[in-house]
């Protein structure tokens, strides 16, 4: 049959660039709107990763300018270590080229696809090459490249290359131009704001056509760069083990101790024994059956979890709080960094934070901020395991209303850091549903929920004391009035009740028939001098006692009386006016005073 031969002639290898050219959506370039955010995200991720490796406080400049009817020029410039000139074409002009793919540690970018995909996208839509300027130190000169990708071979195509006069001492600047729209400007700013929250050591300056924004850093400490570790014996598959064994020149015992994290001599010997293999035999020659036995033994013997403190870089509770404080005004913020844990041999760590009250919108679903390895996740919130976990927590038991998601003035941040974040797709929008990770997220949220409940109940307690003061000082006197009228007896005096119940300095302000009265009843032990501040439109010219000080601003008078109210005595201030202002008492502990405004 000749047909098979015919068919064979058509068979050929496909370059990975061709593959992704046809499958742009896999990388987040499926629409012109998304393209901008994806490109900036990839460039910023690279910049932050590079600064981290170089232990530099990141200073990142981002610019987006319209250059044609639908062409936008995107520039991202960092103060990182720069890229060696000979590497530049590969980093930007070849897909699947990178330094971090095989390293077991937390990084933002990893696959070596992101930024070169943007270069590819530019080349396909605008036809313009990407311009890269990089300098690796003050002794070196900067280099400027114009780069494209040879799609058939996935190799860089250098359009031009040469030294360049650049005022930066070290850093990289990339300029990409492609077809796009700025329809998602709000989303872009949101992305930068969220990025700045989880990278509190970084400063971002943004120029967006005519506007400019700065997201300032709140921490001056560089963050420790995660260090790569060996694979963990519990998190390895057969194929990987076989590959490692084939490539190794070691004897079994050494292979186990040197090739895997947390395997000591004792554990290694245990593994050999359990697998029925000799420790002094070279692993290279092992049969598949022997390797299977070894794998079973490696997974059966207990060894500690991978050393996450090296390979992961959590933000930390303090910095998360500061980051959130900078961008949102809230009454309460708490953060939690969970201990590290493992799924399929990959270390991971969950951090979460809850904010409450303040200027958060009082109605509607909670605001959710999702992060993976310090990168905000901007799309597919509904498909993300983080969202699912948030819905699964029983928020009602923390006195937070809930309709699927919690509702009310609440903000929830979740950060998943891992040596290998499991996304649902290569566009990295949503975290896949991994039971181990979900468990940690739920635990962190429950822990924070308890803190929040405590805060809310404490706040309510404060309200309770105020409420009681109002009952005793404002309502009971009215009851007394009415009841006395009914029983036709003189009005009963309720101040003993006040004193008994409150044991404080009670200041009551009330207005009746054009007369403002401030009554100060001292049921506390305190007998020093206090100051009464009252701000309203009244000038209190006829005040009795006289004011000690009056100042005016925009028609509002601030009146101050300095008064000594001996214990168990009652003083009064009165003047003509309509009041309706603010009253404050200074010079005595908050716990020892209670101010009641009877006009409210």
């Amino acid at each position, binding site marked *: 049959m000749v047909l098979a031969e015919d068919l064979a002639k058509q068979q050929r290898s496909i370059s990975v660039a061709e593959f992704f050219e046809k499958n742009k959506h896999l990388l987040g370039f499926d629409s012109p709107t998304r393209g901008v955010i994806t490109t900036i995200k990839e460039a910023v991720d690279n910049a932050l990763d590079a600064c981290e490796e170089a232990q530099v406080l990141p200073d990142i400049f981002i610019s987006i300018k319209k250059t044609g009817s639908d062409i936008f020029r995107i520039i991202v410039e960092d103060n990182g270590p720069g890229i060696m000139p000979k590497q530049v074409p590969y980093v930007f002009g070849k897909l699947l080229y990178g330094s971090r793919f095989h390293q077991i540690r937390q990084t933002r970018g990893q696959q070596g696809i992101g930024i070169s995909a943007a270069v590819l996208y530019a080349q396909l839509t605008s036809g313009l090459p990407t311009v890269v300027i990089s300098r690796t130190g003050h002794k070196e000169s900067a280099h400027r490249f114009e780069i494209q990708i040879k799609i058939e071979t996935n190799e860089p195509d250098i359009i031009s290359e040469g030294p360049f006069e650049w005022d930066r001492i070290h850093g990289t600047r990339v300029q990409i131009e492609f077809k796009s729209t700025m329809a998602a400007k709000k989303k872009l700013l949101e992305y930068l704001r969220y990025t700045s929250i989880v990278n509190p050591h970084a400063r971002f300056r943004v120029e967006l056509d005519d506007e400019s924004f700065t997201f300032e850093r709140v921490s001056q400490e560089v963050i420790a760069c995660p260090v790569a570790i060996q694979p963990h014996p519990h998190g390895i598959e057969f194929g990987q083990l076989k590959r490692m064994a084939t490539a190794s020149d070691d004897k079994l015992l050494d292979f186990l101790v040197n090739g895997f994290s947390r395997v000591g001599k004792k554990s290694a010997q245990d593994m050999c024994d359990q697998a029925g293999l000799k420790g002094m035999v070279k692993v290279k020659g092992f049969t598949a059956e022997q390797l299977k036995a070894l794998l079973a033994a490696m997974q059966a013997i207990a060894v500690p979890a991978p050393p996450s403190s090296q390979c992961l870089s959590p933000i930390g509770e303090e910095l998360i709080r500061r980051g959130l404080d900078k961008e949102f005004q809230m009454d309460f913020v708490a953060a939690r960094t969970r201990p590290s844990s493992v799924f399929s041999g990959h270390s991971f760590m969950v951090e979460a934070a809850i904010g409450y009250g303040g200027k958060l919108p009082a109605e509607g679903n909670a605001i959710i901020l999702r992060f993976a390895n310090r990168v905000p996740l901007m799309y597919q919130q509904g498909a993300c395991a983080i969202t699912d976990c948030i819905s699964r927590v029983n928020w009602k038991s923390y006195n937070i209303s809930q309709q699927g998601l919690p509702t009310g003035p609440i903000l929830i941040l979740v950060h998943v850091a891992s040596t290998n974040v499991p996304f649902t797709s290569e566009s990295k929008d949503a975290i896949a549903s991994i039971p181990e990770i979900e468990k940690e997220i739920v635990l962190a949220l429950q822990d924070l929920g308890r803190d929040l409940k405590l805060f809310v109940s404490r706040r309510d307690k404060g309200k*309770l004391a105020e*409420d*009681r003061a*109002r*009952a*005793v000082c404002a*309502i*009971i006197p*009215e*009851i*007394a009035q*009415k*009841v*006395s*009228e*009914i*029983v036709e*007896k003189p009005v*009963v005096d*309720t101040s*003993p*009740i006040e*004193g*008994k*119940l409150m044991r404080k300095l009670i200041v009551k302000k009330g207005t009746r028939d054009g007369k403002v009265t401030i009554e100060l009843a001292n049921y506390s032990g305190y007998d020093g001098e206090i100051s009464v501040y009252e701000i309203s439109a009244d000038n209190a010219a006829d005040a009795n006692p006289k004011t000690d000080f009056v100042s005016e601003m925009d028609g509002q008078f601030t009146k101050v009386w300095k008064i000594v109210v001996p214990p168990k005595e009652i003083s009064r201030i009165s003047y003509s006016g309509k009041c309706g202002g603010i009253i404050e008492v200074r010079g005595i502990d908050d716990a020892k005073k209670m101010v009641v405004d009877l006009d409210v």
Partner: protein
Amino acid sequence: MSKEELEKKSMAALLRIASAWYDQMNVGEIPSISLPTRTKYNIEFDDASEVWKYGDKESTRTAASAKSATHLLKMAYVIGFIKQQLKENRSSTLREMYYISEGWKRAKFGAQDESNFLIEDLEILSEVPREGFHLHPEENGASIYGPMRIREETRRGMKTLHCQDDVGQAGYTIPNNVENIEFVDHDAKFVIAIETGGMYDRLIENGFDEEHNAILVHLKGQPARSTRRMLNKISTTWDLPVMVFTDGDPWSYRIYGSVAYGAIKSAHMSELLATPKAQFLGLQPSDIRDYNLPSDKLTDKDVEALKSELTDPRFATDYWRKQINLQIEMNLKSEQQAFAARGLDFVTKTYLPARLADMGILKS
């Protein structure tokens, strides 16, 4: 108790409440009130009066929070308002009082419900029914037709009325204040309280009242307060048996329950409003089976209501357990007018005579 006695008792009780608060405040205490808990788990059978009353569980409300203090303030205003009403011999509805509170500033009611609850609290505290406060319900009671004579104090003086001879075909309408009625005389053997107007009219049209010397009372669904008070008074004054004739579904058994045992929310008034001797005549679940009546399937809500009745202490008798379980098993309910399927005279000529004989009211 005469009208004057009731008013005197009422005034005294209200002043007692106010005085207690006055005294509390006078010695530096925060005023408070204690009330029984009003749930079905705090009602008990009182052997002496044979009615269900609130048990010992109490809750105390102290004016130590803004909410409680405001509640007491409102109560003080209401007491003041009632005192005024009694003095001027005026009366009003709860709804009117709700609107009058518009002028009470901080003591103004937020919603109609609130004034209703507060009046119930006052009834409990004072042991005086709201009629004693000159507060009357919105709606009149239902109708009575039968061989009895009453004397009623009206705005136009005392009226003596016979409930067959001196009234129209629709019968005598129970006024909203039964306390104004005197029971003169009667020629009746028993009372039938009927859920639906259709059945009430049927019994009158078929002359059942004349033939059997029966007083017929139309309940109009869940009976109004004055209808229940009327039945209570007929039963206690003349010691006549009271039979309750309703549809055959869980909601109708509750109608019987509220006639015989009183409602949970008015358990404090049980002695005045309940008729403990009232017996359930029908329509019994066993009647659906025995007379093969047209029927409907029970809904989920019906079944739920039946099951809730099985846990209600007031239905904890062998009779009710048997009937309710039978009904759940049959999964059927019927209306009392379903007897019409057997002919218009079936209910008066066959069913009622047989059932009343069974119950020992008529000789068989």
